[in-house]
């Protein structure tokens, strides 16, 4: 969903940071993508290959760090992996939970050789 727009935003962040650090080439981009974020990494790669042409990030390797969905029960403080259907706390059964991981979408770091 919206991979074209977010890939453009990602590239803007990368080129901005590369400029600030005085890089003349970006070889690798490390991206953190949470499993609940809804973004298809193959689509991000596809759009990146197109959008990064003629920039210093052209041909850079995209490395996706996938984060599994996790939650914390507000009642008993148990931290647990979020399954597909039932988001109740596996310890006390409460549905008062807070998603603690899995919604990320960020540029973690960039690398130049």
């Amino acid at each position, binding site marked *: *969903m*919206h991979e074209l727009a*977010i890939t453009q*935003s*990602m590239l803007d*962040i*990368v080129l901005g*940071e*590369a400029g600030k*650090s005085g*890089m003349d080439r970006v070889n690798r981009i490390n991206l953190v993508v949470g499993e*609940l*974020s*809804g973004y298809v990494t193959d689509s991000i790669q596809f759009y990146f290959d197109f959008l990064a042409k003629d920039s210093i990030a052209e041909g850079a390797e995209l490395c996706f760090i996938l984060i599994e969905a996790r939650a914390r029960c507000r009642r008993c403080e148990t931290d647990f992996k979020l399954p597909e*259907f*039932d*988001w*109740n706390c596996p310890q006390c059964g*409460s*549905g*008062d*939970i807070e*998603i603690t991981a899995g*919604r*990320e*979408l*960020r*540029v*973690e*770091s*960039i*690398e*130049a*050789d």
Partner: protein
Amino acid sequence: MEVKVLKNILSANDRIAEKNRALLDENGVLALNIMASPGAGKTSIIMSTIKALNGEYGIGVIEGDIASSVDAEKVSREGIPAVQINTGGGCHLDANMISDSLPDLPLDKLDFIFIENVGNLICPASYALGDRRRIIIASIPEGDDKPIKYPIMFHDADLIVLNKVDLAPYVNFDRAAFRQAIKNLNDKTPIIEVSCTTGEGLDEWLTWLKAQKIK
């Protein structure tokens, strides 16, 4: 050489949403992000609310659609300030669109702004607008499994309104299954059953709404 970046890709939208929220807070306006599938009853609930409150509160509306101004016109005919956003293909509203709309509303005279998002149970969940309440309108004809199919949207809701309960005798809808599915995602979220056609349940919705007003 590795340079740490640690930048959220949607941070541009989030920053604008924060500015929107600050402006609304300054003016004591509570914005509600109304989200649902097309046809579930977003406009209907807004219209029913406007008619029932009958000037008791200052209301403004921001309408989001791909095309047409049908909804904003309905609202304007009731004498309520309304702004129509046409996304021209965009499947959700974003903070920038709201930021552009707020200057066209008399914020100092409003208690509530209803932001009617584009009909879509997926994309709006990812885009903060500056609202303080997320309302999901579900409806009887859509079936009771929508919370299972769209977990993030239903988990994030501050209130779920189940509309078109007058149609319950004519379609398969397991209310207990629907309620359990929502409880499995977030057991704190209230569920209010309404029919915008018959008026059933609207009092309960209005009571909830009035309790949200920024003092």
